């Protein structure tokens, strides 16, 4: 199944780039002019996100570089160990909603250290694949339209991340067994 999916994803963008303008032409759309017309807002949209991203990434960067994240990991690890989450993946779990790149770094480090086919390797692979960088998405999406008050969005995003974490531990144990 994976071969089909990966082939599909390789073709998806070229196919869109081919099919969309073709259909548009057939329906009498002035393709070049319409494309340029739509693309015009691209610059403004990207620039508008700058202050929001700066605010968020400064905080995340300070939090991480100062060692505060390690303190948080240490404080939380007894509680999370009690519910069956291995301490080794905790830095990843905390970093995942904050920074996609950093989380990927931690994930590859765990995979390198324990092996991709170990329980920890499989667990962290699943965790990496199954959720998104909540704070980045919230900041970027809300920032692009100038929304400053996120209401309950941060909470629902984090609850979703926690759920993914718990589901990953449970599913990886069920599918592959806890050993390995």
């Amino acid at each position: 199944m994976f071969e089909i999916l990966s082939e599909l994803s390789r073709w998806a963008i070229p196919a869109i780039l081919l099919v969309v303008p073709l259909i548009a032409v057939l329906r009498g759309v002035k393709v070049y002019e319409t494309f340029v017309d739509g693309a015009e807002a691209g610059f403004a949209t990207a620039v508008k996100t700058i202050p929001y991203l700066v605010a968020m990434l400064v905080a995340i960067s300070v939090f991480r570089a100062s060692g505060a994240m390690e303190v948080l990991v240490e404080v939380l690890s007894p509680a999370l160990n009690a519910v069956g989450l291995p301490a080794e993946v905790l830095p990843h779990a905390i970093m995942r909603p904050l920074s996609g790149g950093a989380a990927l770094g931690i994930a590859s480090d765990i995979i390198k250290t324990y092996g991709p086919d170990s329980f920890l390797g499989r667990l962290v692979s699943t965790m990496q694949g199954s959720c998104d960088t909540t704070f980045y998405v919230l900041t970027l999406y809300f920032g692009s339209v100038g929304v400053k008050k996120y209401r309950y969005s941060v909470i629902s995003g984090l609850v979703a991340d926690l759920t993914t974490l718990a589901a990953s531990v449970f599913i990886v144990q069920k599918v592959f067994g806890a050993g390995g």
Partner: protein
Amino acid sequence: MVNYVWLGMIVFGIIVAGARGDIETVTKAALDGANSAVKISIGLIAIITFWLGIMKLAEEAGLVRALAWLVRPAMRFLFPSVPKDHPAMGAMVMNLSANILGLGNAATPMGLIAMRELQKLNQGRDVASDAMCTFLALNTSCVTLIPTTIIGIRVLYGSADPTEIVGPTIMATAFSMAVAVVVDRVLRFFYNSRQQQGR
């Protein structure tokens, strides 16, 4: 909430750095963070511009409306406050489809288009609308059918079966999406009733 998280990360970070006698780190980290934020935004200009152009073509050709029509029942349930023929529906459908296909760099610009349309319905206020919150809940619990990057890393470190985690990933994603939708509805209920009490 975002105010407290933001402040908390900075204050806690500075306290820890100070306690470790390593306060210079904070200055460097802050500027590094700002720097990478600008780099990300500048890097986004190219792909956002490209996808906004393609989106406009798809819209004019009637493709977005066709796709939105296909998944209308689900979208009506998830976003009752968005009129059924509003461009926001189409853009959200495109964003979620791009996520599902693992086209990370196509999903983001389409998400931004969706937000722009939702913001029109929100009449330009700086407070997130119900539909925006639901959309972001779905987005952050993100369905990815093909987690390509992590598969690449597994190949790199000699996994016997690099793609074996695809199944578990889809299951975990599906579960967290379902929870995200429920939590979104529950929090909306509490949030709205609290507001009506005038707090």
